[in-house]
Protein backbone atom coordinates (compact mmCIF):
# COMPACT_ATOMS: atom_id res chain seq x y z
CA UNK A 1 0.00 0.00 0.00
CA UNK A 2 2.95 2.31 0.53
CA UNK A 3 4.07 1.80 -3.04
CA UNK A 4 4.50 5.24 -4.52
CA UNK A 5 3.27 4.08 -7.90
CA UNK A 6 -0.27 3.49 -6.61
CA UNK A 7 -0.84 7.08 -5.57
CA UNK A 8 -3.23 8.85 -7.86
CA UNK A 9 -3.32 12.63 -7.79
CA UNK A 10 -6.69 14.02 -6.69
CA UNK A 11 -8.94 13.95 -9.71
CA UNK A 12 -11.81 16.24 -10.40
CA UNK A 13 -14.75 15.32 -8.19
CA UNK A 14 -17.14 15.63 -11.08
CA UNK A 15 -15.68 12.41 -12.55
CA UNK A 16 -16.75 10.57 -9.39
CA UNK A 17 -20.18 12.14 -9.71
CA UNK A 18 -20.44 11.02 -13.34
CA UNK A 19 -19.30 7.48 -12.49
CA UNK A 20 -21.99 7.21 -9.85
CA UNK A 21 -24.65 8.84 -12.01
CA UNK A 22 -24.06 6.23 -14.71
CA UNK A 23 -24.87 3.43 -12.28
CA UNK A 24 -28.28 4.87 -11.39
CA UNK A 25 -30.55 3.13 -13.89
CA UNK A 26 -33.53 5.42 -13.37
CA UNK A 27 -31.40 8.49 -13.88
CA UNK A 28 -29.87 7.16 -17.09
CA UNK A 29 -33.25 6.23 -18.56
CA UNK A 30 -34.63 9.57 -17.36
CA UNK A 31 -31.81 11.47 -19.06
CA UNK A 32 -32.32 9.56 -22.31
CA UNK A 33 -36.07 10.24 -22.30
CA UNK A 34 -35.52 13.88 -21.45
CA UNK A 35 -32.91 14.31 -24.18
CA UNK A 36 -35.22 12.59 -26.70
CA UNK A 37 -38.06 14.95 -25.79
CA UNK A 38 -35.73 17.95 -26.09
CA UNK A 39 -34.54 16.72 -29.50
CA UNK A 40 -38.14 16.17 -30.57
CA UNK A 41 -39.09 19.73 -29.60
CA UNK A 42 -36.04 21.67 -30.69
CA UNK A 43 -34.68 19.70 -33.67
CA UNK A 44 -37.97 18.18 -34.88
CA UNK A 45 -39.48 21.37 -36.38
CA UNK A 46 -36.55 21.64 -38.81
CA UNK A 47 -37.21 18.17 -40.18
CA UNK A 48 -41.01 18.13 -40.18
CA UNK A 49 -42.74 19.48 -43.26
CA UNK A 50 -45.81 21.03 -41.59
CA UNK A 51 -45.73 24.26 -39.66
CA UNK A 52 -47.47 24.49 -36.30
CA UNK A 53 -49.66 27.37 -37.48
CA UNK A 54 -50.45 26.20 -41.04
CA UNK A 55 -54.23 25.87 -41.38
CA UNK A 56 -55.65 23.33 -43.82
CA UNK A 57 -59.38 23.50 -43.07
CA UNK A 58 -60.28 20.68 -45.51
CA UNK A 59 -58.26 18.08 -43.59
CA UNK A 60 -59.54 18.89 -40.11
CA UNK A 61 -60.26 16.42 -37.32
CA UNK A 62 -58.32 13.62 -38.98
CA UNK A 63 -57.11 10.60 -37.05
CA UNK A 64 -53.50 9.39 -36.99
CA UNK A 65 -51.98 8.69 -40.39
CA UNK A 66 -48.48 8.65 -41.90
CA UNK A 67 -48.95 12.24 -43.03
CA UNK A 68 -50.19 13.36 -39.61
CA UNK A 69 -48.95 10.87 -36.96
CA UNK A 70 -50.99 12.49 -34.16
CA UNK A 71 -53.85 13.58 -36.44
CA UNK A 72 -55.08 17.14 -37.05
CA UNK A 73 -57.15 19.49 -34.93
CA UNK A 74 -60.44 21.28 -35.54
CA UNK A 75 -58.75 23.80 -37.87
CA UNK A 76 -56.73 21.18 -39.74
CA UNK A 77 -53.40 22.07 -38.08
CA UNK A 78 -50.93 19.20 -37.73
CA UNK A 79 -50.91 18.15 -34.05
CA UNK A 80 -47.45 16.58 -34.38
CA UNK A 81 -46.00 19.95 -35.38
CA UNK A 82 -47.98 21.74 -32.68
CA UNK A 83 -46.66 19.32 -30.07
CA UNK A 84 -43.08 20.10 -31.11
CA UNK A 85 -43.62 23.85 -31.11
CA UNK A 86 -45.58 23.73 -27.85
CA UNK A 87 -42.89 21.65 -26.21
CA UNK A 88 -40.29 24.32 -26.93
CA UNK A 89 -42.26 26.90 -24.97
CA UNK A 90 -43.28 24.58 -22.16
CA UNK A 91 -39.78 23.23 -21.61
CA UNK A 92 -38.27 26.69 -21.78
CA UNK A 93 -40.81 28.10 -19.33
CA UNK A 94 -40.44 25.12 -16.99
CA UNK A 95 -36.67 25.18 -16.88
CA UNK A 96 -36.29 28.96 -16.79
CA UNK A 97 -38.89 29.32 -14.03
CA UNK A 98 -37.27 26.48 -12.09
CA UNK A 99 -33.80 28.00 -12.31
CA UNK A 100 -35.01 31.43 -11.28
CA UNK A 101 -37.21 30.13 -8.48
CA UNK A 102 -34.58 27.78 -7.04
CA UNK A 103 -31.98 30.53 -7.26
CA UNK A 104 -34.24 32.96 -5.41
CA UNK A 105 -35.29 30.36 -2.86
CA UNK A 106 -31.75 29.15 -2.15
CA UNK A 107 -30.41 32.69 -1.94
CA UNK A 108 -33.07 33.87 0.47
CA UNK A 109 -32.93 30.65 2.47
CA UNK A 110 -29.15 30.79 2.88
CA UNK A 111 -29.15 34.48 3.77
CA UNK A 112 -31.96 34.03 6.29
CA UNK A 113 -30.40 30.94 7.84
CA UNK A 114 -26.84 32.20 7.96
CA UNK A 115 -27.19 35.81 9.00
CA UNK A 116 -29.30 36.03 12.11
CA UNK A 117 -30.08 39.68 11.54
CA UNK A 118 -31.67 38.96 8.16
CA UNK A 119 -33.66 35.99 9.40
CA UNK A 120 -36.67 37.89 10.70
CA UNK A 121 -37.18 40.27 7.78
CA UNK A 122 -36.56 37.64 5.11
CA UNK A 123 -38.85 35.06 6.68
CA UNK A 124 -41.63 37.63 7.07
CA UNK A 125 -41.12 38.44 3.39
CA UNK A 126 -41.49 34.73 2.65
CA UNK A 127 -44.71 34.62 4.65
CA UNK A 128 -45.94 37.62 2.73
CA UNK A 129 -45.29 35.92 -0.60
CA UNK A 130 -46.89 32.70 0.64
CA UNK A 131 -50.03 34.70 1.31
CA UNK A 132 -50.07 36.18 -2.20
CA UNK A 133 -52.59 34.49 -4.46
CA UNK A 134 -51.05 33.64 -7.83
CA UNK A 135 -53.91 34.47 -10.17
CA UNK A 136 -54.88 37.97 -8.96
CA UNK A 137 -51.18 38.80 -8.83
CA UNK A 138 -50.84 37.70 -12.44
CA UNK A 139 -53.87 39.72 -13.46
CA UNK A 140 -52.27 42.79 -11.99
CA UNK A 141 -48.90 41.96 -13.52
CA UNK A 142 -50.30 41.41 -16.98
CA UNK A 143 -52.32 44.60 -16.74
CA UNK A 144 -49.29 46.61 -15.68
CA UNK A 145 -46.52 45.07 -17.74
CA UNK A 146 -48.06 43.34 -20.75
CA UNK A 147 -47.98 46.36 -23.04
CA UNK A 148 -44.52 47.47 -21.99
CA UNK A 149 -42.98 44.01 -22.24
CA UNK A 150 -44.62 43.34 -25.60
CA UNK A 151 -43.35 46.65 -26.91
CA UNK A 152 -39.87 45.99 -25.60
CA UNK A 153 -39.31 42.33 -26.46
CA UNK A 154 -42.12 41.40 -28.85
CA UNK A 155 -45.32 39.61 -27.85
CA UNK A 156 -43.89 36.12 -27.38
CA UNK A 157 -40.65 36.98 -25.61
CA UNK A 158 -42.45 39.57 -23.51
CA UNK A 159 -45.04 37.05 -22.40
CA UNK A 160 -42.34 34.46 -21.81
CA UNK A 161 -40.45 36.80 -19.50
CA UNK A 162 -43.61 37.76 -17.67
CA UNK A 163 -44.78 34.20 -17.13
CA UNK A 164 -41.37 32.98 -16.00
CA UNK A 165 -41.01 35.84 -13.55
CA UNK A 166 -44.54 35.42 -12.28
CA UNK A 167 -44.13 31.67 -11.71
CA UNK A 168 -40.74 32.12 -10.11
CA UNK A 169 -41.72 34.84 -7.67
CA UNK A 170 -44.75 32.90 -6.52
CA UNK A 171 -42.98 29.57 -6.01
CA UNK A 172 -39.60 30.20 -4.34
CA UNK A 173 -40.94 30.22 -0.80
CA UNK A 174 -40.93 26.49 -0.12
CA UNK A 175 -37.31 26.15 -1.21
CA UNK A 176 -36.37 29.14 0.91
CA UNK A 177 -37.94 27.65 4.02
CA UNK A 178 -36.40 24.22 3.57
CA UNK A 179 -32.98 25.71 2.83
CA UNK A 180 -33.18 28.06 5.80
CA UNK A 181 -33.95 25.18 8.14
CA UNK A 182 -31.03 23.15 6.85
CA UNK A 183 -28.64 26.09 6.99
CA UNK A 184 -29.62 26.79 10.60
CA UNK A 185 -28.62 23.25 11.50
CA UNK A 186 -25.50 23.16 9.30
CA UNK A 187 -23.94 26.38 10.50
CA UNK A 188 -23.68 24.96 14.02
CA UNK A 189 -21.73 21.95 12.79
CA UNK A 190 -18.12 21.75 13.87
CA UNK A 191 -16.71 21.79 10.35
CA UNK A 192 -18.14 25.26 9.87
CA UNK A 193 -16.48 26.30 13.11
CA UNK A 194 -13.29 24.63 11.91
CA UNK A 195 -13.42 26.60 8.67
CA UNK A 196 -13.92 29.77 10.66
CA UNK A 197 -10.92 28.95 12.83
CA UNK A 198 -8.89 28.64 9.63
CA UNK A 199 -10.03 32.12 8.70
CA UNK A 200 -12.41 31.34 5.85
CA UNK A 201 -14.54 34.42 5.17
CA UNK A 202 -18.33 34.13 5.21
CA UNK A 203 -18.85 34.09 1.45
CA UNK A 204 -16.50 31.16 0.92
CA UNK A 205 -17.86 29.44 4.03
CA UNK A 206 -21.27 29.51 2.39
CA UNK A 207 -20.16 28.37 -1.04
CA UNK A 208 -17.75 25.72 0.21
CA UNK A 209 -19.42 24.27 3.28
CA UNK A 210 -23.06 25.30 3.44
CA UNK A 211 -24.31 25.16 -0.16
CA UNK A 212 -22.95 21.71 -1.08
CA UNK A 213 -24.62 20.29 2.01
CA UNK A 214 -28.07 21.76 1.29
CA UNK A 215 -27.92 20.43 -2.25
CA UNK A 216 -30.27 17.49 -1.65
CA UNK A 217 -33.40 19.43 -0.65
CA UNK A 218 -32.67 22.04 -3.32
CA UNK A 219 -32.37 19.32 -5.95
CA UNK A 220 -35.66 17.73 -4.94
CA UNK A 221 -37.56 20.99 -5.00
CA UNK A 222 -35.94 21.92 -8.32
CA UNK A 223 -37.17 18.79 -10.06
CA UNK A 224 -40.65 19.22 -8.65
CA UNK A 225 -40.60 22.87 -9.66
CA UNK A 226 -40.26 22.09 -13.38
CA UNK A 227 -43.51 20.15 -13.25
CA UNK A 228 -45.31 22.84 -11.31
CA UNK A 229 -44.05 25.52 -13.68
CA UNK A 230 -45.25 23.68 -16.80
CA UNK A 231 -48.66 23.12 -15.25
CA UNK A 232 -48.97 26.70 -13.98
CA UNK A 233 -48.10 27.98 -17.44
CA UNK A 234 -50.87 25.84 -18.92
CA UNK A 235 -53.35 27.16 -16.35
CA UNK A 236 -52.39 30.71 -17.25
CA UNK A 237 -52.70 30.09 -20.97
CA UNK A 238 -56.04 28.43 -20.32
CA UNK A 239 -57.29 31.58 -18.60
CA UNK A 240 -56.11 33.70 -21.50
CA UNK A 241 -53.46 35.48 -19.47
CA UNK A 242 -50.50 33.70 -20.97
CA UNK A 243 -49.42 33.42 -24.55
CA UNK A 244 -51.76 34.48 -27.38
CA UNK A 245 -54.46 31.88 -28.22
CA UNK A 246 -52.95 30.65 -31.51
CA UNK A 247 -49.56 30.12 -29.89
CA UNK A 248 -49.18 26.45 -28.97
CA UNK A 249 -47.89 25.30 -25.61
CA UNK A 250 -48.48 21.89 -24.05
CA UNK A 251 -50.78 23.39 -21.48
CA UNK A 252 -52.76 25.20 -24.17
CA UNK A 253 -53.03 22.00 -26.23
CA UNK A 254 -54.49 20.20 -23.22
CA UNK A 255 -57.07 22.89 -22.62
CA UNK A 256 -57.94 23.05 -26.33
CA UNK A 257 -58.34 19.29 -26.39
CA UNK A 258 -60.73 19.27 -23.43
CA UNK A 259 -63.59 20.54 -25.69
CA UNK A 260 -63.18 17.44 -27.86
CA UNK A 261 -62.53 14.96 -25.05
CA UNK A 262 -65.61 12.91 -26.03
CA UNK A 263 -64.82 12.57 -29.74
CA UNK A 264 -61.01 12.70 -29.79
CA UNK A 265 -59.61 11.84 -26.33
CA UNK A 266 -56.05 11.57 -27.63
CA UNK A 267 -55.99 15.30 -28.37
CA UNK A 268 -55.94 16.22 -24.66
CA UNK A 269 -54.08 13.16 -23.50
CA UNK A 270 -51.03 13.36 -25.77
CA UNK A 271 -49.70 16.68 -24.42
CA UNK A 272 -50.61 15.44 -20.94
CA UNK A 273 -48.51 12.36 -21.47
CA UNK A 274 -45.60 14.51 -22.62
CA UNK A 275 -45.86 16.75 -19.58
CA UNK A 276 -45.88 13.68 -17.34
CA UNK A 277 -42.91 12.16 -19.17
CA UNK A 278 -40.87 15.33 -18.74
CA UNK A 279 -41.75 15.58 -15.07
CA UNK A 280 -40.98 11.92 -14.44
CA UNK A 281 -37.68 11.93 -16.30
CA UNK A 282 -36.55 15.15 -14.61
CA UNK A 283 -37.47 13.65 -11.25
CA UNK A 284 -35.35 10.59 -11.94
CA UNK A 285 -32.46 12.75 -13.12
CA UNK A 286 -32.71 14.77 -9.93
CA UNK A 287 -32.77 11.59 -7.90
CA UNK A 288 -29.67 10.26 -9.60
CA UNK A 289 -27.87 13.57 -9.31
CA UNK A 290 -28.64 13.86 -5.63
CA UNK A 291 -27.25 10.39 -4.99
CA UNK A 292 -24.23 10.99 -7.17
CA UNK A 293 -23.41 14.26 -5.42
CA UNK A 294 -23.47 12.69 -1.95
CA UNK A 295 -20.14 11.02 -1.24
CA UNK A 296 -21.69 8.86 1.48
CA UNK A 297 -24.01 7.19 -1.00
CA UNK A 298 -21.50 7.22 -3.84
CA UNK A 299 -19.71 3.96 -4.42
CA UNK A 300 -22.50 1.82 -3.08
Amino acid sequence: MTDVGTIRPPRNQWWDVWDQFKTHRGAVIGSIVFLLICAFCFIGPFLWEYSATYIDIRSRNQGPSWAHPFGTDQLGRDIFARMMKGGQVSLAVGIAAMVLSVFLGALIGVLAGYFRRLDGPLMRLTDLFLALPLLPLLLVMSMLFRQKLSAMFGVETGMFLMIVTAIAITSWMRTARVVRGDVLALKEREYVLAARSIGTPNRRLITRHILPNVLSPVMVSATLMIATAIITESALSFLGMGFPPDFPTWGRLVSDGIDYLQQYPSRAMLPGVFISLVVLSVNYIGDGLRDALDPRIRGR
Partner: protein
Amino acid sequence: MSERKKLLQVIDLKLHFPIYGGLLRRQVGAVKAVDGVTFDIFEGETLGIVGESGCGKSTAGRAVLRLYETTAGSILIDGVDIATLSQEELRKKRPAMQMVFQDPQASLNPRMTVAGIIGEPLDEHTNWPRAKKLERIYELMDAVGLNRDFANRYPHAFSGGQRQRIGIARALALNPRFIVCDEPIAALDVSIQAQVVNLLEELQEQFGLTYMFISHDLSMVRHIADRVAVMYLGKIVELAPVSRLYDHPAHPYTEALLSAVPEPDPSLERRKDRIVLQGDVPSPANPPKGCNFCTRCPKVMDICRETEPVTVEVAPGHFAACHLIPQTAGQTGGAEVEHNQTRIQQGEVV
Protein backbone atom coordinates in the same frame (compact mmCIF):
# COMPACT_ATOMS: atom_id res chain seq x y z
CA MET B 1 10.03 29.24 34.70
CA SER B 2 8.97 32.83 34.21
CA GLU B 3 12.08 33.46 32.11
CA ARG B 4 10.50 31.47 29.33
CA LYS B 5 8.65 33.42 26.69
CA LYS B 6 4.91 33.77 27.15
CA LEU B 7 3.24 32.86 23.89
CA LEU B 8 -0.29 33.41 25.06
CA GLN B 9 -1.54 35.64 27.83
CA VAL B 10 -5.20 35.53 28.74
CA ILE B 11 -6.18 38.28 31.12
CA ASP B 12 -9.55 38.32 32.87
CA LEU B 13 -11.35 36.76 29.93
CA LYS B 14 -15.13 36.84 30.20
CA LEU B 15 -17.66 35.35 27.87
CA HIS B 16 -21.29 35.83 28.78
CA PHE B 17 -24.07 34.56 26.55
CA PRO B 18 -27.06 36.88 26.93
CA ILE B 19 -30.48 35.47 27.84
CA TYR B 20 -33.42 37.29 26.33
CA GLY B 21 -36.85 37.09 27.81
CA GLY B 22 -40.11 38.85 28.42
CA LEU B 23 -42.45 40.46 25.96
CA LEU B 24 -39.89 42.88 24.54
CA ARG B 25 -37.08 40.30 24.31
CA ARG B 26 -34.92 42.35 26.62
CA GLN B 27 -31.80 40.89 28.13
CA VAL B 28 -32.83 39.40 31.47
CA GLY B 29 -29.55 37.73 32.36
CA ALA B 30 -26.46 36.06 31.06
CA VAL B 31 -24.95 32.60 31.06
CA LYS B 32 -21.49 33.23 32.44
CA ALA B 33 -19.76 30.47 30.52
CA VAL B 34 -16.32 31.92 31.11
CA ASP B 35 -16.15 34.39 33.95
CA GLY B 36 -12.85 36.10 34.55
CA VAL B 37 -10.20 33.62 33.52
CA THR B 38 -6.51 34.55 33.68
CA PHE B 39 -3.66 32.32 32.59
CA ASP B 40 -0.47 32.27 30.54
CA ILE B 41 0.88 29.65 28.22
CA PHE B 42 4.62 29.53 27.67
CA GLU B 43 6.17 28.73 24.37
CA GLY B 44 6.50 25.00 23.74
CA GLU B 45 4.52 23.84 26.75
CA THR B 46 1.19 22.09 27.08
CA LEU B 47 -1.39 23.60 29.36
CA GLY B 48 -4.08 21.12 30.31
CA ILE B 49 -7.55 22.43 31.11
CA VAL B 50 -9.69 20.04 33.13
CA GLY B 51 -13.11 20.25 34.69
CA GLU B 52 -16.46 18.57 34.55
CA SER B 53 -19.01 18.95 31.77
CA GLY B 54 -20.41 22.41 31.36
CA CYS B 55 -17.72 24.22 33.31
CA GLY B 56 -16.69 26.31 30.32
CA LYS B 57 -13.53 24.49 29.18
CA SER B 58 -14.48 24.29 25.51
CA THR B 59 -15.96 27.76 25.51
CA ALA B 60 -12.73 29.11 26.95
CA GLY B 61 -10.76 27.28 24.26
CA ARG B 62 -12.92 28.66 21.50
CA ALA B 63 -12.88 32.14 22.98
CA VAL B 64 -9.08 32.08 23.04
CA LEU B 65 -9.15 31.66 19.24
CA ARG B 66 -11.91 34.25 19.12
CA LEU B 67 -14.40 31.91 17.57
CA TYR B 68 -16.82 33.59 19.96
CA GLU B 69 -16.85 37.32 20.55
CA THR B 70 -15.54 37.91 24.05
CA THR B 71 -17.48 39.99 26.56
CA ALA B 72 -14.45 41.41 28.32
CA GLY B 73 -10.78 40.77 28.88
CA SER B 74 -7.84 40.47 26.56
CA ILE B 75 -6.09 37.65 24.76
CA LEU B 76 -2.50 38.44 23.89
CA ILE B 77 -0.66 36.28 21.40
CA ASP B 78 2.92 37.49 21.05
CA GLY B 79 1.81 40.70 22.70
CA VAL B 80 -0.97 41.41 20.18
CA ASP B 81 -4.43 41.58 21.68
CA ILE B 82 -6.61 39.52 19.34
CA ALA B 83 -9.78 40.21 21.31
CA THR B 84 -10.06 43.64 19.73
CA LEU B 85 -8.63 43.03 16.25
CA SER B 86 -10.84 43.65 13.24
CA GLN B 87 -11.99 40.59 11.28
CA GLU B 88 -9.52 41.23 8.47
CA GLU B 89 -6.52 41.62 10.80
CA LEU B 90 -7.70 38.60 12.76
CA ARG B 91 -7.77 36.58 9.55
CA LYS B 92 -4.10 37.36 8.98
CA LYS B 93 -3.33 36.12 12.50
CA ARG B 94 -5.23 32.85 12.04
CA PRO B 95 -2.33 30.79 10.64
CA ALA B 96 -0.49 31.09 13.96
CA MET B 97 -3.32 29.55 15.96
CA GLN B 98 -5.32 26.51 15.03
CA MET B 99 -7.76 24.12 16.63
CA VAL B 100 -8.35 20.37 16.80
CA PHE B 101 -11.97 19.55 17.48
CA GLN B 102 -13.71 17.12 19.74
CA ASP B 103 -15.92 15.18 17.36
CA PRO B 104 -13.96 14.00 14.34
CA GLN B 105 -17.25 12.94 12.76
CA ALA B 106 -18.66 16.45 12.80
CA SER B 107 -15.53 18.48 12.23
CA LEU B 108 -14.90 17.28 8.66
CA ASN B 109 -17.14 18.39 5.82
CA PRO B 110 -18.66 15.15 4.42
CA ARG B 111 -18.63 16.55 0.89
CA MET B 112 -14.93 17.32 0.69
CA THR B 113 -12.11 14.91 -0.02
CA VAL B 114 -9.29 14.48 2.46
CA ALA B 115 -7.03 16.49 0.16
CA GLY B 116 -9.66 19.22 0.04
CA ILE B 117 -10.02 19.32 3.81
CA ILE B 118 -6.31 19.38 4.58
CA GLY B 119 -5.73 21.84 1.75
CA GLU B 120 -8.41 24.31 2.82
CA PRO B 121 -6.09 26.40 5.03
CA LEU B 122 -3.60 26.51 2.16
CA ASP B 123 -6.32 27.71 -0.22
CA GLU B 124 -7.23 30.43 2.23
CA HIS B 125 -3.81 31.73 3.17
CA THR B 126 -1.42 30.94 0.34
CA ASN B 127 -1.46 31.38 -3.41
CA TRP B 128 0.77 28.44 -4.13
CA PRO B 129 0.40 26.57 -7.41
CA ARG B 130 -1.63 23.39 -7.20
CA ALA B 131 1.36 21.04 -7.35
CA LYS B 132 3.02 22.72 -4.38
CA LYS B 133 -0.18 22.52 -2.35
CA LEU B 134 -0.51 18.83 -3.17
CA GLU B 135 3.10 18.28 -2.12
CA ARG B 136 2.37 19.98 1.22
CA ILE B 137 -0.81 17.93 1.67
CA TYR B 138 1.13 14.71 1.16
CA GLU B 139 3.81 15.93 3.56
CA LEU B 140 1.15 16.57 6.22
CA MET B 141 -0.46 13.20 5.63
CA ASP B 142 2.93 11.59 6.18
CA ALA B 143 3.43 13.61 9.35
CA VAL B 144 0.19 12.39 10.92
CA GLY B 145 0.60 8.85 9.63
CA LEU B 146 -2.03 8.72 6.91
CA ASN B 147 -1.49 6.79 3.70
CA ARG B 148 -1.04 9.17 0.78
CA ASP B 149 -3.48 7.12 -1.23
CA PHE B 150 -6.31 8.30 1.05
CA ALA B 151 -6.16 11.80 -0.41
CA ASN B 152 -9.08 11.22 -2.77
CA ARG B 153 -11.38 9.64 -0.22
CA TYR B 154 -14.17 11.19 1.77
CA PRO B 155 -14.36 11.44 5.58
CA HIS B 156 -17.12 8.83 5.90
CA ALA B 157 -14.71 6.15 4.74
CA PHE B 158 -12.44 6.57 7.78
CA SER B 159 -12.46 5.42 11.39
CA GLY B 160 -12.60 7.89 14.26
CA GLY B 161 -8.86 7.82 14.85
CA GLN B 162 -8.06 8.36 11.20
CA ARG B 163 -10.55 11.22 11.04
CA GLN B 164 -8.89 12.85 14.02
CA ARG B 165 -5.57 12.54 12.19
CA ILE B 166 -7.11 14.35 9.24
CA GLY B 167 -8.28 17.07 11.63
CA ILE B 168 -4.77 17.33 13.10
CA ALA B 169 -3.22 17.52 9.63
CA ARG B 170 -5.58 20.35 8.77
CA ALA B 171 -4.59 22.19 11.94
CA LEU B 172 -0.89 21.74 11.08
CA ALA B 173 -1.17 22.89 7.47
CA LEU B 174 -0.11 26.46 8.05
CA ASN B 175 2.71 25.74 10.51
CA PRO B 176 0.86 27.12 13.53
CA ARG B 177 2.66 27.88 16.77
CA PHE B 178 -0.30 27.32 19.04
CA ILE B 179 -3.02 24.67 18.84
CA VAL B 180 -6.12 24.43 20.98
CA CYS B 181 -7.01 20.75 21.35
CA ASP B 182 -10.66 20.69 22.36
CA GLU B 183 -11.13 17.23 23.87
CA PRO B 184 -9.45 15.66 20.84
CA ILE B 185 -9.63 12.18 22.35
CA ALA B 186 -13.02 12.22 24.05
CA ALA B 187 -14.84 10.66 21.10
CA LEU B 188 -12.27 7.93 20.45
CA ASP B 189 -11.93 4.50 22.00
CA VAL B 190 -9.14 3.89 24.44
CA SER B 191 -6.57 2.20 22.18
CA ILE B 192 -6.94 4.99 19.62
CA GLN B 193 -6.76 7.66 22.34
CA ALA B 194 -3.21 6.60 23.14
CA GLN B 195 -2.23 6.71 19.47
CA VAL B 196 -3.63 10.18 18.97
CA VAL B 197 -2.08 11.55 22.15
CA ASN B 198 1.30 10.09 21.24
CA LEU B 199 0.94 11.60 17.78
CA LEU B 200 0.23 14.97 19.34
CA GLU B 201 3.33 14.65 21.52
CA GLU B 202 5.51 13.66 18.57
CA LEU B 203 4.25 16.58 16.55
CA GLN B 204 4.90 18.92 19.46
CA GLU B 205 8.49 17.78 19.59
CA GLN B 206 8.91 17.88 15.84
CA PHE B 207 7.38 21.31 15.17
CA GLY B 208 7.81 23.00 18.56
CA LEU B 209 4.10 23.42 19.07
CA THR B 210 2.33 24.89 22.05
CA TYR B 211 -0.88 23.19 23.12
CA MET B 212 -3.87 24.16 25.12
CA PHE B 213 -5.20 20.69 25.86
CA ILE B 214 -8.81 20.61 27.01
CA SER B 215 -9.98 17.32 28.48
CA HIS B 216 -11.93 15.75 31.26
CA ASP B 217 -9.64 12.75 31.31
CA LEU B 218 -7.31 13.48 34.22
CA SER B 219 -4.89 10.64 33.62
CA MET B 220 -4.46 11.67 29.97
CA VAL B 221 -3.84 15.26 31.00
CA ARG B 222 -1.26 14.07 33.53
CA HIS B 223 0.46 12.24 30.69
CA ILE B 224 0.58 15.07 28.16
CA ALA B 225 0.44 18.37 30.06
CA ASP B 226 3.21 20.42 31.67
CA ARG B 227 0.86 22.56 33.71
CA VAL B 228 -2.80 22.02 34.49
CA ALA B 229 -5.64 24.47 35.10
CA VAL B 230 -8.76 23.20 36.86
CA MET B 231 -11.97 24.97 35.90
CA TYR B 232 -15.21 25.08 37.80
CA LEU B 233 -18.24 27.05 36.67
CA GLY B 234 -16.42 29.42 34.36
CA LYS B 235 -13.47 30.10 36.63
CA ILE B 236 -10.04 28.66 37.10
CA VAL B 237 -9.92 27.37 40.68
CA GLU B 238 -6.43 25.98 40.59
CA LEU B 239 -3.44 26.17 38.27
CA ALA B 240 -0.20 24.33 38.91
CA PRO B 241 2.59 22.32 37.32
CA VAL B 242 1.34 18.84 36.65
CA SER B 243 3.26 16.91 39.34
CA ARG B 244 2.49 19.53 41.97
CA LEU B 245 -1.21 19.52 41.17
CA TYR B 246 -1.57 15.75 41.23
CA ASP B 247 0.50 15.32 44.41
CA HIS B 248 -0.53 18.35 46.44
CA PRO B 249 -3.90 19.62 45.28
CA ALA B 250 -4.78 22.81 47.12
CA HIS B 251 -8.41 23.24 46.19
CA PRO B 252 -11.12 20.88 47.52
CA TYR B 253 -12.59 20.62 44.03
CA THR B 254 -9.27 19.42 42.62
CA GLU B 255 -9.06 16.88 45.45
CA ALA B 256 -12.51 15.61 44.59
CA LEU B 257 -11.67 15.38 40.88
CA LEU B 258 -8.44 13.49 41.58
CA SER B 259 -10.11 11.07 43.95
CA ALA B 260 -12.45 10.11 41.11
CA VAL B 261 -9.57 8.88 38.93
CA PRO B 262 -9.73 5.06 38.76
CA GLU B 263 -6.96 3.25 40.60
CA PRO B 264 -5.43 0.32 38.71
CA ASP B 265 -4.45 -1.63 41.84
CA PRO B 266 -7.59 -3.35 43.19
CA SER B 267 -6.32 -3.59 46.78
CA LEU B 268 -5.52 0.11 46.83
CA GLU B 269 -8.80 0.79 45.08
CA ARG B 270 -10.72 -0.87 47.89
CA ARG B 271 -8.99 1.12 50.58
CA LYS B 272 -9.32 4.42 48.75
CA ASP B 273 -11.47 7.15 50.25
CA ARG B 274 -13.37 8.74 47.46
CA ILE B 275 -14.71 12.24 47.83
CA VAL B 276 -18.11 12.05 46.21
CA LEU B 277 -19.55 15.46 45.47
CA GLN B 278 -23.25 15.90 46.14
CA GLY B 279 -25.64 17.63 43.80
CA ASP B 280 -25.15 19.25 40.42
CA VAL B 281 -23.13 22.14 39.12
CA PRO B 282 -25.15 25.32 39.76
CA SER B 283 -26.44 27.08 36.67
CA PRO B 284 -23.85 29.43 35.18
CA ALA B 285 -26.72 31.85 34.60
CA ASN B 286 -27.21 32.14 38.33
CA PRO B 287 -23.99 31.26 40.17
CA PRO B 288 -24.08 31.11 43.99
CA LYS B 289 -22.99 34.03 46.10
CA GLY B 290 -19.46 33.88 47.41
CA CYS B 291 -17.36 30.98 46.20
CA ASN B 292 -18.78 29.20 43.14
CA PHE B 293 -18.04 25.84 44.72
CA CYS B 294 -19.69 26.55 48.11
CA THR B 295 -22.84 24.58 47.28
CA ARG B 296 -20.96 21.30 46.90
CA CYS B 297 -17.73 21.79 48.79
CA PRO B 298 -17.12 19.16 51.53
CA LYS B 299 -15.04 21.68 53.50
CA VAL B 300 -17.41 24.60 53.18
CA MET B 301 -17.14 27.41 55.75
CA ASP B 302 -19.32 30.41 56.50
CA ILE B 303 -17.00 32.82 54.75
CA CYS B 304 -17.32 30.79 51.49
CA ARG B 305 -21.00 31.71 51.18
CA GLU B 306 -20.24 35.40 51.70
CA THR B 307 -17.09 36.47 49.89
CA GLU B 308 -15.45 35.22 46.81
CA PRO B 309 -11.94 33.84 47.33
CA VAL B 310 -9.04 35.55 45.58
CA THR B 311 -6.44 33.61 43.65
CA VAL B 312 -3.22 33.26 45.64
CA GLU B 313 0.11 31.68 44.88
CA VAL B 314 0.37 28.68 47.19
CA ALA B 315 3.83 27.76 46.01
CA PRO B 316 5.89 29.12 43.11
CA GLY B 317 3.81 28.56 39.98
CA HIS B 318 0.93 27.04 41.93
CA PHE B 319 -2.16 29.20 42.12
CA ALA B 320 -5.47 28.45 43.76
CA ALA B 321 -8.61 30.31 44.76
CA CYS B 322 -9.96 29.04 48.08
CA HIS B 323 -10.54 30.45 51.55
CA LEU B 324 -8.78 27.46 53.07
CA ILE B 325 -5.48 28.35 51.53
CA PRO B 326 -4.13 31.29 53.54
CA GLN B 327 -4.27 29.07 56.63
CA THR B 328 -2.66 26.04 55.02
CA ALA B 329 -0.05 28.18 53.33
CA GLY B 330 0.59 29.88 56.66
CA GLN B 331 1.63 26.58 58.18
CA THR B 332 4.29 25.94 55.58
CA GLY B 333 5.84 29.38 55.41
CA GLY B 334 5.31 32.99 56.26
CA ALA B 335 5.73 34.53 52.83
CA GLU B 336 2.18 34.02 51.66
CA VAL B 337 1.09 37.59 52.31
CA GLU B 338 3.30 38.97 49.56
CA HIS B 339 2.06 36.34 47.16
CA ASN B 340 -1.54 36.74 48.12
CA GLN B 341 -2.63 39.56 45.88
CA THR B 342 -0.36 38.82 42.95
CA ARG B 343 -3.02 37.22 40.80
CA ILE B 344 -6.21 39.12 41.16
CA GLN B 345 -9.18 40.22 39.20
CA GLN B 346 -11.72 37.68 40.22
CA GLY B 347 -13.58 39.80 42.72
CA GLU B 348 -15.37 42.16 40.37
CA VAL B 349 -18.22 39.93 39.26
CA VAL B 350 -21.73 41.36 39.10
